[in-house]
């Protein structure tokens, strides 16, 4: 079997990719699709292989068979499976291994022997429990519910990713909980694998994105919420907001990114199940830290009752 491997299945799911008969993962195409603007930002995922392999037909060559040596080295087997050439420890989320060759041992994190290694990579023991160390030598295949997988190279950079999307990472990277709840940040130099629903797109800020399409971001200093409040203006808008009459487009709320960096978007609005990122200490000033919210200014705040409109917010809305 030769590398790059041909696709064992029918046509590529991304029919719009230009045909590239010789080298599906060529450096040239890689460069064309991505021009780095500054050091330290992540490399984009490999473009999926164009449809080179003909459909296995009766009498044809048949599908590609991989063995322990022809599996790609730290690269995608197809858009949905990633092959790791394991030599040493590697962190992966529980249950993402589908097959392996060689002598590989999986152990839960939190055992004594690897505790020291752990110190460099995890900061919270609670979320370390969701991870597994693969140790040994061999080829390891990773996949996650047939979602698209991509590997990313960080070079002395940082990237924040939705907790459910991160699959595996090299131990040269440190995994930290983001201040933003539900997100994890990877810091350092190394490779990691993340899943997305559909191929990932890299866009540069300033940009506003749909919350469900956001996979992560790199280097952006200011991720914040953005609401289109124009539809709330005036009396009619107020009534509309309070009663729901007239409807809403469902796109009034976005995430806004400002600053230098890259924003990663997936091509669908289907979210992956979130993983626990670990608890944060109940401490004042820590978002999501379990500290009760400040009462609204003006004193007492009524509970928000869905269906009746946010009467509790009424005072604040009219500046009372």
């Amino acid at each position, binding site marked *: 079997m030769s590398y790059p491997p041909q696709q064992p299945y029918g046509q590529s799911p991304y029919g719009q990719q230009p045909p590239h008969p010789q080298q599906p993962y060529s450096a040239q195409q890689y460069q064309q699709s991505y021009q780095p603007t500054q050091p330290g930002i992540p490399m984009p995922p490999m473009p999926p292989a164009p449809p080179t392999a003909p459909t296995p037909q009766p009498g044809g060559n048949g599908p590609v068979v991989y063995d322990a040596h022809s599996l790609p080295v730290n690269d995608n087997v197809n858009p949905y499976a990633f092959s790791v050439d394991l030599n040493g420890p590697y962190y992966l989320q529980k249950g993402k291994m589908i097959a392996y060759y060689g002598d590989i041992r999986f152990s839960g994190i939190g055992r004594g022997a690897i505790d020291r290694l752990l110190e460099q990579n995890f900061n919270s023991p609670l979320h370390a429990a969701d991870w597994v160390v693969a140790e040994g030598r061999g080829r390891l295949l990773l996949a996650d519910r*047939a979602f698209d997988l991509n590997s990313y190279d960080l070079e002395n950079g940082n990237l924040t990713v939705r907790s459910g999307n991160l699959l595996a990472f090299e131990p040269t990277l440190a995994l930290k909980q983001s201040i933003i709840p539900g997100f994890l940040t990877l810091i350092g130099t190394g490779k990691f694998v993340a899943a997305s629903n559909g191929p990932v797109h890299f866009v540069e800020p300033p940009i506003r994105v749909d919350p469900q399409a956001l996979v992560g971001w790199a280097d952006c200093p200011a991720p914040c919420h953005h609401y289109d409040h124009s539809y709330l203006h005036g009396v009619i808008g107020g009534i509309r907001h309070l009663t729901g009459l007239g409807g809403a487009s469902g796109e009034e709320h976005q995430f806004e990114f400002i600053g230098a960096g890259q924003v990663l978007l997936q091509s669908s609005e289907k979210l992956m199940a979130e993983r626990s990122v670990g608890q944060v200490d109940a401490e004042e000033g820590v978002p999501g830290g379990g500290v009760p919210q400040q009462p609204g200014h003006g004193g007492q705040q009524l509970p928000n009752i869905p269906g009746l409109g946010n009467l509790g917010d009424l005072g604040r809305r009219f500046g009372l």
Partner: protein
Amino acid sequence: MPRGRHDRYIRPVAQFRLQGSRVLAVDMAGDSVKARNGSMVAYTGQMNFKKLTGGGDGLRGMVARRLTGEQMTVMEAKGQGTCYFADQATEVNLVRLNGEALYVEADNLLCTEATLHTGTSFTGLNGMASGNGLFTTKVEGTGWAALTSNGPAIILRVTQGTPLRVDPGAYVAHTGNLSRHLKSGAGWTTLIGEGGGEAMQVEFTGEGLVYVQPSEKATFGGDV
């Protein structure tokens, strides 16, 4: 077409091809195929569909399937034209058999040529512990079989000296002279919730091919 003494035994053979990666198209000229019940999505020409009782393995097979729990409702499609099969937008993989046996989970078998014989095969306690059931479906003969997988299946070769270990939820099928053993990575740490997440693995040794899918079914061993 060669003409000879055996001419009357030469029968039209159904042509299997992929229409995209998620639809199987079978061109038929009066012959029949066995397909999972309800998997037809469209057809051209004249087709008749008949439900086969007991997985189409005859009375003995029916009893075996009832007993083993490797349930498979199968229909026979027969006629002239092209028939299209699909199952919940899963990827279709074509497998050519030349006399060897294909072992496949009943959930993953979409369609077989009429020349192929299907039956049940005992996998031992390994299958049960891995959540795949005690029995698996065995397809034998010469012809085409179509498997479905959640995401395109990856075909991995197993040779002497390079055994393969597979997560039970990602296993789809295997061919060749392989023996499967259950490997347990579970220890006392699994019991206290600090397990490695891959407590159950199926080890394949020998010579053959294993089909794995890039996703995992919910199995007993999947999240331990």
